[in-house]
Structures are given as structure tokens and as C-alpha cells.
């Protein structure tokens, strides 16, 4: 499948190569944020740092949790916990496409041998009050990356505009390693597989998300966290406020997976989280100028 690199690139080597690549491009290599989030975009290094005038370059791995996507470890393509490799650069550099294609080369995907396609994908995150234009990048028909120019974040127009590149690490590695199941991915050179590390947790968290999470408690926790966020916004400390908001968002995701939120309620909860994000964004921007 993959040229130039002879031995199979392991999951962790893929991460190392991407980190090295983007580090050379001047990015601050961060570690994952230590809260449950739905995507790398939720890391404050993206949401908050994409707001305001100050230039910023970062790259990091972010474990991402999507409770509704859990399949008890039975589905070869779906996980409730997976990894994204996230790059955010503000303002978006002129040669970003070249950089991106070269980053693919660094993990063994040569754009002259594969059908790399930039397919229209307008991105929107209702809970973040965010929107952007860009593409999903296909490699021989497989979506491996989201490539987005942020136009709006936390309800605020982005100026300057940041570019966000989000690699789906599992998909990318399945492509590189030529695997049909995510659980067969090779994690390191010792032959440890994705299954060895994550299968049990997929199974158990699916059970938690779908069956055992105590919804009465979670509804209460949501209210408490929402109140706390509002209080912290009043005190104008945006980062702790944002943490509480992220927790809200995750609690909502579990409730959603448990199937206890109706369609109408769903829209209402999303709107509530968006309001929190917006108020935090405002406090953050004030602190930037």
C-alpha cells in the first residue's frame, strides 16, 4: 500500500512523525487536554486560541469521545473513544496545502501515487457556535482528514482566520497499515494491537453510555455545571469557565446516548451549551486585547 517506508508504520510512529513534522513548522506541540471532549476542536488551544488577533500555531493528539458511536467493540469501524491529531494555525499560512500534503508524505502517503481529493465539506459545531469552510480530504476514497478555515467561533467572526487540520488517526493508520478492522491496528513495533489496548474499554464504556449511566444524576450534574460556568463567566475567568462548559457538553453527550433526550430537548440543550460557549468566548477575547 505504502511506498518509501519499508516497515509498517505503527500507530505510535504515525503520531511521532506528525508531531515531528508540525514541530518543524513551528507548531507548539501540546499534550491532550485532560477532560472528556468530542473532538480535538474542543481543546481550548483551538477554541479559545483561534479567537482574537494573536498569531498561534499548535499541534496535538486529542482523545475524543462520542458516546453514541460506541458499538461494544463489535464494529470494525466505530468507536466511542478514538484519537484525532489536530493542527491549528492562525493566521492560515499561504502554503498550508503544501504543508499538509508533505505531512502525508512523512507518514508514507505520496500524493503522486494516491488519489488525494479535497471534497467540499462545510463544517459547523452547534455547541461551539462555530462554522467554517473547507474540505474532507479523501485518500483513494477514504476520508482521512478534515481541513477547515474557521469563519466563526463561539459566535464571533474569526479575524484573522485560522486553519484547522484534523487527522483521523485510526482511519489514517488503517489505510497505511492496510487493515480492515480498527482493532487489528499495530500500535508499536512490539506488535501490540489496538485491540489489546482498547477493546475492553470500548465494551465497558458502551455498556456505561447506553445502559448504566445514571441519568437522574447526570441531569442534575448538567444543571450544576451550567450554573458554575455562568458564575465563572461573571468572575471573568474564562479558562475554568470553559472547563465546566466542556463537562456540560460531555454530560449531554452521555444523556443523548442513553436515549433520554427527545428531539425538541436536544435542540434546547445544544442551545444552552452554545450560550455558555459564546459568553466564555466574549470574556476570552476581552482578555486578549
Amino acid at each position, binding site marked *: *500500500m505504502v511506498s518509501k517506508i519499508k516497515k509498517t508504520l505503527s500507530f505510535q510512529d504515525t503520531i511521532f512523525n506528525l508531531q515531528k513534522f508540525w514541530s518543524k513548522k513551528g507548531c507548539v506541540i501540546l499534550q491532550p487536554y485532560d477532560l472528556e471532549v468530542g473532538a480535538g476542536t474542543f481543546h481550548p488551544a483551538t477554541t479559545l486560541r483561534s479567537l482574537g488577533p494573536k498569531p498561534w500555531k499548535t499541534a496535538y493528539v486529542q482523545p475524543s469521545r462520542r458516546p453514541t458511536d460506541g458499538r461494544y467493540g463489535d*464494529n*470494525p*469501524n*466505530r468507536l466511542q473513544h478514538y484519537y484525532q491529531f489536530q493542527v491549528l494555525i492562525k*493566521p*492560515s*499560512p*499561504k*502554503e498550508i*496545502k*503544501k504543508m499538509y*500534503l*508533505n505531512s502525508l508524505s512523512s507518514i508514507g502517503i505520496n*500524493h*503522486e*501515487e*494516491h*488519489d*488525494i*481529493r*479535497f*471534497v*467540499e465539506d*462545510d463544517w459547523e459545531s452547534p455547541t461551539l457556535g462555530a462554522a*467554517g*469552510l473547507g*474540505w474532507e480530504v479523501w*485518500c*483513494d*476514497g*477514504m476520508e482521512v482528514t478534515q481541513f477547515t*478555515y474557521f*469563519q466563526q467561533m463561539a459566535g464571533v467572526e474569526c*479575524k*484573522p*482566520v485560522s*486553519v484547522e487540520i484534523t487527522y483521523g488517526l485510526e482511519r489514517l493508520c488503517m*489505510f497505511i497499515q492496510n487493515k*480492515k478492522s480498527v482493532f487489528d491496528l499495530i500500535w508499536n513495533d512490539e506488535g501490540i494491537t489496538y485491540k489489546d489496548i482498547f477493546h475492553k474499554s470500548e465494551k465497558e464504556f458502551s455498556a456505561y453510555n447506553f445502559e448504566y449511566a445514571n441519568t437522574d444524576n447526570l441531569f442534575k450534574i448538567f444543571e450544576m455545571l451550567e450554573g458554575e460556568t455562568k458564575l465563572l463567566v461573571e468572575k471573568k475567568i474564562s479558562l475554568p469557565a470553559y472547563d465546566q462548559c466542556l463537562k456540560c457538553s460531555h454530560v449531554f453527550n452521555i444523556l443523548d446516548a442513553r*436515549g433520554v433526550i*427527545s*428531539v*425538541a430537548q436536544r435542540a434546547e440543550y445544544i442551545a444552552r451549551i452554545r450560550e455558555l460557549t459564546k459568553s466564555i468566548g466574549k470574556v476570552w477575547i476581552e482578555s486578549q486585547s
Partner: protein
Amino acid sequence: MSELFVELFSEEIPAKLQINARNELKKNIKNFFIDNQIKFNENFNVYSTPNRLVLHIDKIPTEIKLNSEEIRGPNVNAPEKALEGFIRSNNTTLEKIFKKSTEKGEFYFFKKESRKIKVSDLLEKNLSEILTKITWNNSMKWANYDLYWGRPLKSILAIFNKKPLNFIFNHINSSNKTFTDKSLEEGLKIFNDFNSYIKFFKQKGVLIDQDLRKKIIQNKINEIINKKNLKIEQNERLIDEIVNIVEKPAVIICDFDKKFLNVPSEILITTMQSHQKYLPTFDKKNNLTNNFFVVSDIKDTKGFVKLGNERVIEARLSDAEFFWEKNKTQNLVKQVDKLKNINYFKGLGSYFDKIQRMRKLSSLISDDFLISKDKIEIASSICKVDLMSDLVGEFPELQGIVGGHFAKFQGFDKEVCLAVSEQYLPNGMESKLPKKMYSVALSLSDKLDSLVGFFGINLKPTSSKDPYAIRRMAISLVRLIVENEIKIKLKDLIVYTCSAYRDQGYDFDTKKIQNELSDFIIERLKNYLKEKKIRQDIIESSTFLLGLDDLLKAYKKSLCLNKNIKKEIGFETIAVYKRSSNILNTEEKISIETLGFADPGLFKNDYEKKLYKKINDIRKYFLSIGKDENYEESLKILSSIKNEVNDFFDNVIVHDEDKIIKKNRLELLNMLCKTFDNYFNFSKIEA
């Protein structure tokens, strides 16, 4: 004669935006040439690839001559500053200014001498504005710039008469160079004319002309399907999208494991078309095969592209198969109760509530349609269960269709399955129309329930906004009725639907809903007739007397009159009507009101009597036809009164001195007009 050649190089612009940008650029540049009276080859083209928007026009003069002209300045009474400004802006002196009277008063003038202008100067001055005028349906900003474009614009190449044009568009300076490597955005190269540009890229396999790309893709596909005895579906929209997401198309035929063919074909087709932009193939009997086409943007020299795409489809189809196997055995009837947890629409209850209403409504309709009440009630009960399935979660566009397959698998009656499958059809003007009565009944009750519900909670569309696509719903309702030639009392059905809502505790104002919905549906019928190219005056007339219960009649009569309006039966009918109604209208203005009852005892001559008799004959005809009216025959009968009417007007003076006789003659004419109303009110028809 010279050529203008412009290339706008950007990051990948989505297909729809590209098509729009080509049209916009074409229109704007054409207007520029016309406005400036510059000759140009009107058969010019705008081309695009995902990265390049290219304009090429030839046969342009290098210079144009502007005739001398008198330029009007400020009024002679205007403040002195205005005159100073006029002198300055025309780069002239006070001596060359003269006064002249016009219709609007006396003004200062300046005579501009005839002069020659270089077209290249004009272009350099105006190109930036021409580009600014391109409107995008969806555009973005990037980096620190203020420019909005479909995707980041990287460079502009602009050549006129083999020389570069120099202008600035926002932050970008035009030049005679472009990036020949679109991926890495490198390989800057100078081009001085369009031909060498096209030739250079052709050698690299890049086709700038979208029509050429389309031809090549289609030829290659045809070559392969002919050899393999396959067919593809004519899907222009998908082909046009594919054409605009590649620059060097390579058609690759791939296949997937035949075992997936056990999954309903709609699921497989949707996966291939909407999710992956693949073209599925069919055998001669129209059955889906496991071969499909990928149009790659690169020659697959090492076979990676084929392999990769086959793996992707395998993963996607495995997913679909997994859900299909899981969902198909889940008992539809047992799941109905769970619909209570699924909100239909805020303020309109759950889907469980909705199907209760639909069941009542479809059961009532079944009496009119002479179909089994039991079957349509079963169809109504299970029709929304598929909304809870994983498959519809994955493929929302297959709602209904998937439910139909579940029903079939679980052994439901054939007609019930089809009705579930077609419940959302038609969906607008172009979509497929269900023909079987069970399907029509289910679709009708679904749409009526929605329309009444949305009007009930006052979510009617406004002139500019229709977020719930209510117009489309109503147009679909009109199509269901007129195209299937259904005779149905829509008014009663609306009242009945309202009562179904009221039974569930909704406080709906039946009268209000009935009136508003009536008007709304009649408006949709008018639009529908317009789409069918019926004359506007006929459309207006058709809905003048015929209401909601007569959609089919209004449709058929319009169609018939539209067809015959230039023929004798149509033409004469209208002429007779107009001749009579014109007199009535004039008299009404001096307030002689008539009721349409002439007294035969007051007739003075045979002409009146004959006309009276003929009118009564026609009335008898309309009384006798009942439900099976032949509209052409009706027009023929109406026009046959021509002789009696002409004789009447040639020999009888309506304005008799005796007011009673005059009134009686007017009554006779009114009788005639009212009789014509049996077809429809012709007063709005323009003769």
C-alpha cells in the same frame, strides 16, 4: 484582433460553486464588453477545474475609438463649487465650458473630443471590479485578508494581446505566471497565450475544458459497459459533480463482494452515489451489479486507487449490511409503541400521535378509494417505525424505502409494503409519483396531517422563508390529486384532520385553518398550472369559481381551454362570452343590476326566443353530464351558440326605449354568461 486570457488559481473550489462562478464571470465580462462598446467573439467560454477558473475571449480589437460627446455638468444655478468639481473631474479648463439649454433647464457642458483608448488600459482599470462582482452562494475569508472567495485565491494570470495585464485584486497582483503544480502550488511558469497554456496542461493530462472532461469520462464509461454488458443510470447531477471535482479524469472499474447484493439495492446505491460519488452499474435486466465506477484524479499506475476505493466501499457496505441484518428482524408492530418517545414536531406531538391521526384519515380516504380499510390502517400504523432504525440514522434519505423493505421481509401485504415505501412521494415537482391507491392514500394522509398541523401552530411559510418545505408538501398534494385523477372532497378531509388533532387535545381553529390552507393549496395549483405552461389568464379563470374540492376539474378545464384557445371552439366561446359580458359590464356601471332570469313573456321577437331556447338547451347539457364531463365537448357546445348570439346582436337593440324590455334583454345576456360559468368564469380571459 487580440485575445483576453485570465486564470484565477485557487485551492479546490467545490463543484456547485465552480459552475456558478463560471456563469457569473461569463455574464460580468460580457456586460463589460457590451457597456464599453468593445467588439468581442461572443462565442467565448469560461472553463474551470477545481483549482483554475479560466476565461478566454478572442477577436477583441486592441484599440477602440470613442466618438466626441457632450458631457452635461451642473445646472447653471448650482453653487460655484459644483462647476469647479466638474472642470476638475473632466481635466479641462473654464474656457472650454459652455452653457446649453435642455428640457430640464440650462446646464454647463463640456465637449469631449473623439479619442482612441487602448483596450488593455480599460481592462486593467476594470478587471478587479469585474471579479468583485462575482457573487458566491457560499464564500469564505482566509488568513488576514478581507477578500471573500469560494476558497482561498492564490494567484491571477491575466494576458491581453500576449502581454500581461497589470492590476491589483485585493491583495493579489496579477501577472503572466501561474502554478503548474496544483497540489504543492509550485512550478511557476509564464504563459503568454491561451493555446500554449491549454497545450501545456494537456501534455500533463490536465483538461481545463469541463465539457471535454465530461466527454472523456462518458466515452470511457461507455466503452467499458459495452464490453461488460452493463448499464449505468443517467444521473446528470452526479456526472456533472464528478466532472468538476477532477482535472485529469481516470475512469476505474471496481467491484465489491457479491454477498452485499443481498442488502436492498437502494441502500447500496445511496452509499455509492451520495457518500462516495461512485457510479453503480446495472445488468440488462436493471438489477444492480457488484461493479461500480470510480473517477480518479490520477492515473492508477500502481493499482493503489482501485484497491483503496474497494476497501472503502467494503467497509461502508459492511456497516450497511450489519444494520440491515440487525434491523430487518425487529418486529415493526411491536415497535409502534416506541414512537411515543420520538418527537414529530414541537407542538404537534410524537410520531405515535401522528400515526394515530394518519390512521383515521387514511381510513376515511379508503372509503372514497374503495380500498381495504384494514390494510391502509396497518400501513399507517407501521409507516414511521423505520425512523427509529439504525439504517435510517445512517441513510436519512432512505426513510420510507427502508421501512418498506422491513415490512416486506416481515411478510406484510405487498400493497402495504409499497405504500410504506412510497409514503413520502412525490416530493416536489420533479419527483416520482405513486400510482397505487394504497400509496396515494398513505401519502395524502401524511401530507394533509403535516399541512394542517403546521397551519394549526401558525408556521405558515412567508414569501421569502419556507424552512419546513411546506410549499413543496402542498405542491406534492396537488400532484397526487391531479396526476392520479382523484376525485376527492379535500375540504372535508381538512376538517376531519382538524378534528383528529382536536381529539388529541389540540386547540385548532378549524375554520381558520380551512380557509388559509384552502387559499394556500389553490395558490400551489396555480403554480403547478404555470409550470405546465398554461396561460396566466386561463390559470386565473380556472380558480375563480372552482375551489379546493375541484382541483382536478380546474386542472383539466385549464388544460383543455389552453389547448383549444386558438382553435374555433375556444376562440368562439370566448368571443360570444365577451360580447355579452361587455354590455353587461357597461350597464352595471350605470347600476342596472341583473340576476340572470329573463322573462320569456317579454320577448319581442324570434331572435330573443331562439337565444333563450339555446341557452336552456346548453343548461340541460350541463345538468346531464354529471361526473364524466368531456371538456372539449363542453367547449364545443358552448361555442355552438355563436349563431344565435350573432343573430341576436345583429337584429336586436338591447337598449330599447322601454326600460323593462331593455332590462329583460340584459337578463337574457346575463343568463348566457352564467351558463358559460358552468365551464368556468371567462371574464378574466384576454381575448
